[in-house]
């Protein structure tokens, strides 16, 4: 019988094993691979033993360090623009009687949930060199659109795709400001605009910072958008990692590992700065009286609704374009859109892409089962059994935000490419299997579930569990019969978001897939990159549709109370 030194009742030991399990999972599939990557970045085929060769090379060759500059540019500019769009949007939505408020809200959430490269692709269809709008404008007015390829286009796509993070965080916070604070400012003689700048905005600064951080991290880590919109020799760190990894033979990927290290260090630095900045500005508030909503009618109402409608629609355009395109005929090479309606692209999916579709649903479903079970256990440990390990678990939960998908993919390749050789000479490895893609999904997407689970648990009174134990049900059974049962609705919304993001996952799986383990997202991406637009659109439509249906389920089930960020 295990007992702690103070004669702790032994029933607590179930959680001891759960903690061990969680740490083993993260040790094996996050800490160890990352450690291997770090070690790997200090070795090179060009030098003996421990070396800084890779880093020196990175910082001396323009080909490489330029990518660092590019990455920072295409992360910082969209972050700024997202704040400029997201904050006013949140203010309008929380303070005025916008017509169709919920509808715009759902559109914005939907546009956040699809893979970023779809946005890039849609904007190419519309504004690319042979894009519909580009052609239309040049044929009619002789007007030449500025090129969408390159950093300008990438920044525009990222902004439209990622401002919802800022919008969602800030509108949540603005909705939680108690009316009396603003009334008080008014009472002290502040006009509406002054009040906005001196009270409302400063109070939500932590939320703005949190949203901006998400925009920065996502833009920094995204592989697909610059992959599609790069054009010419525009490289970012994630695309560089992928290219370097492909070009380095033997699977050592030393230089790619070094680049990965650099990107993780940047992410850590930004995270640290954000925390430092926000730590002194944390105001907790619970709105007893929600903020006043200005009721306009007629022309004024139209004027406040118009900007919200335009921004939401523009953000949602990519999804609409993709779905429309999936029904438009293309010429035989599948290259250019012609006129007329067709179901040919979907028929094509049925003929040659069934395994990808099947893979997507099988992998994401297996992943979500593990995410649910591990997520519930983990949120319980974080909230109720913190002890000395709680802080460590919190950190592990932050890791997926700091380690970009493509970096995690590379970690896995480096760590699991060779695990040993059997007696008959077969190499044992995890790479190339479905398991490795599923594991990556679990590790990267679990935080959504854990976060909604722990938020729910914090609200739940521990005495309900104690009552069950007191009535003679062992703590382990109590966890299953009472705690997990009560947590389920709270966890489910987070789990569905984990699921949606698993389905749309690209940056890790593109590093890890083989012909047999390809998913819809990868197929859509490769089809689009190869300009096989029709099939790509049909695949992407399936993603959009699935995500949309799942999100609407979450929205209904949680009565709009779920947090998407």
């Amino acid at each position: 019988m295990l007992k702690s030194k103070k004669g702790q009742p032994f029933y607590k030991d179930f959680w001891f094993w759960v903690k061990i399990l969680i740490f083993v999972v993260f040790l094996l599939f996050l800490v160890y691979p990352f450690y291997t990557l770090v070690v790997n970045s200090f070795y090179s085929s060009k030098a003996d033993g421990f070396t800084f060769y890779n880093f020196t090379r990175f910082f001396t060759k323009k080909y490489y360090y330029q990518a660092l500059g590019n990455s920072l540019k295409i992360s910082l500019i969209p972050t700024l623009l997202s704040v400029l769009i997201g904050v006013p949007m949140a203010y309008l939505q929380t303070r005025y009687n916008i017509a169709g408020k919920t509808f715009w809200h759902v559109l914005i959430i939907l546009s956040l949930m699809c893979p970023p490269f779809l946005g890039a692709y849609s904007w190419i269809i519309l504004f690319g060199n042979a894009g519909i709008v580009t052609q239309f404008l040049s044929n009619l007015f002789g007007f030449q659109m500025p090129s969408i390829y390159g950093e300008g286009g990438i920044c525009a796509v990222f902004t439209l795709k990622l401002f919802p993070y800022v919008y969602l965080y800030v509108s949540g916070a603005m909705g939680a400001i108690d009316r009396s604070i603003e009334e008080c400012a008014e009472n002290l003689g502040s006009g509406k605009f002054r009040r906005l700048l001196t009270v409302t905005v400063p109070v939500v600064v932590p939320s703005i910072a949190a949203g901006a951080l998400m925009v920065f991290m996502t833009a920094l880590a995204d592989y697909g958008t610059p992959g599609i919109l790069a054009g010419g020799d525009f490289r970012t760190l994630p695309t560089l990692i992928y290219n370097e990894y492909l070009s380095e033979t033997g699977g050592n990927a030393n230089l790619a590992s070094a680049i990965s290290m650099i990107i993780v260090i940047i992410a850590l630095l930004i995270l640290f700065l954000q925390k430092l900045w926000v730590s002194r500005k944390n105001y907790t508030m619970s709105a007893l009286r929600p903020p006043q909503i200005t009721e306009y009618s007629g022309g004024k109402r139209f004027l406040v609704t118009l900007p919200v409608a335009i921004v939401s629609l523009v953000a949602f355009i990519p999804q609409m374009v993709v779905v429309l395109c999936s029904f438009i005929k293309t010429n035989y090479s599948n290259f250019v859109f012609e006129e007329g309606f067709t179901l040919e692209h979907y028929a094509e999916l049925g003929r040659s892409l069934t395994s990808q579709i099947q893979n997507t649903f099988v992998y994401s479903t297996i992943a979500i089962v593990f995410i649910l079970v591990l997520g519930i256990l983990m949120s319980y440990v974080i909230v109720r059994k913190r002890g000395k390990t709680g802080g460590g678990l919190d950190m592990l939960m932050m890791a997926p935000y700091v380690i970009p998908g493509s970096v995690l993919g590379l970690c896995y390749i480096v760590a699991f490419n060779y695990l040993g050789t059997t007696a008959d000479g077969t190499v044992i490895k995890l790479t190339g299997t479905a398991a490795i893609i599923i594991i990556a999904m679990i590790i990267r997407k679990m935080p959504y579930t854990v976060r909604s689970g722990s938020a729910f648990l914090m609200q739940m009174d521990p005495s309900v569990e104690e009552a069950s134990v007191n009535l003679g049900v062992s703590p382990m059974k109590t966890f299953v019969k009472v705690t997990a049962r009560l947590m389920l609705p709270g966890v489910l919304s987070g789990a569905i978001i984990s699921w949606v993001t698993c389905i749309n996952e690209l940056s890790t799986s593109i590093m890890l897939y083989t012909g047999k383990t390809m998913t819809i997202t990868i197929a859509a991406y490769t089809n689009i990159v190869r300009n096989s637009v029709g099939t790509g659109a049909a695949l992407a439509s399936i993603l959009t549709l699935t995500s949309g249906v799942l999100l609407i389920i979450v929205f209904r089930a949680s009565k709009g109370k779920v947090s998407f960020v």
Partner: protein
Amino acid sequence: MSHAVIIDRAVKTYGDFTAVNGISLKINPGEFFTLLGPSGCGKTTLLRMIAGFNTVDGGEIRFDDKVINNVPAHKRDIGMVFQNYAIFPHLNVADNVAYGLKARHVPKDQIPPRVEEALKMVQIDQLKTRKPNELSGGQQQRVALARAFVIEPSVLLMDEPLSNLDAKLRVQMRTTIKKLQRRLGITTVYVTHDQEEALAISDRIAVMNQGNIMQIGTPEEIYRKPANPFVANFIGVSNFIDCTIKAVKNSASVSLPGNYSVTIPVTKDYEGEAILSARPEQLFFDEAGIPGKINMSVFLGDFIQYEVELVTGQVIELNEYTKDVDNIRKDGEEVHISMNTNQVSLYEKESEEVLSC
């Protein structure tokens, strides 16, 4: 079968903080025993040690002869009523009450009649199929009560079960709880910070402060003969007046302010500074006595509450029953105050040990 609960030098520490400081007490079978004290005195900590939710860091807790220190909470056969009721929100009333019976593998056909009977005893049998969110606070409290005693536990624990109810319901429920406990004869340990509630409901009370027991006794003993100034102050209202005494042969002559002196029966010889503790109703106006003047009077129907400023500047409280007097004294009136010497208490100044009998 109800058990005696024996707590033998129990200790609970949190880091450097000692929440329960070597407490010993014996609760008799079938007794209604209350742990009373201000918040942070360790009463809930001790209760949760009995329940098995807090570890016992020193000493022993026994049910009769059986040491339960290391018996896990779910095997202690204890019923517990929580401060916020802790009703299972996903189960209806009947299933909440049946929960403990199912855990004990009571035969299926015996569960519904036992649930029914328990719900009848707390008068909510007509709410059987309701969900917890459709119940009022008082009804939830009854469900919690039924759920705790339906398993016929050897010990019943209650952690401030009435503190979330409104005043009227609180009085009503405490009568219900007391009658139920008498009828079932379950050894009950009750925690509260409300002294009136403790006096009304308990067979015996342990008054606690800072992890120690200050006094154990029946409600009457604790009110009439507080063992130290803390108990005198915590239970009811007491006025503390500094004095010097000379006690020989079970009788102390007490010198009070204003050259007034009284004789109070004591249990031991002592000479020196002391504290006299008198409740407002143990004081009365008298020609001889400590001089002072009326600061303010409050008419409360059955009695009149006076705030009197003594010559020393100390302000004390004195009650006069309306039925005993014809009119209310005016503010500023000069008065002299005397006391019922058989009822007041006397403590040594330094050690705060009780001198009076």
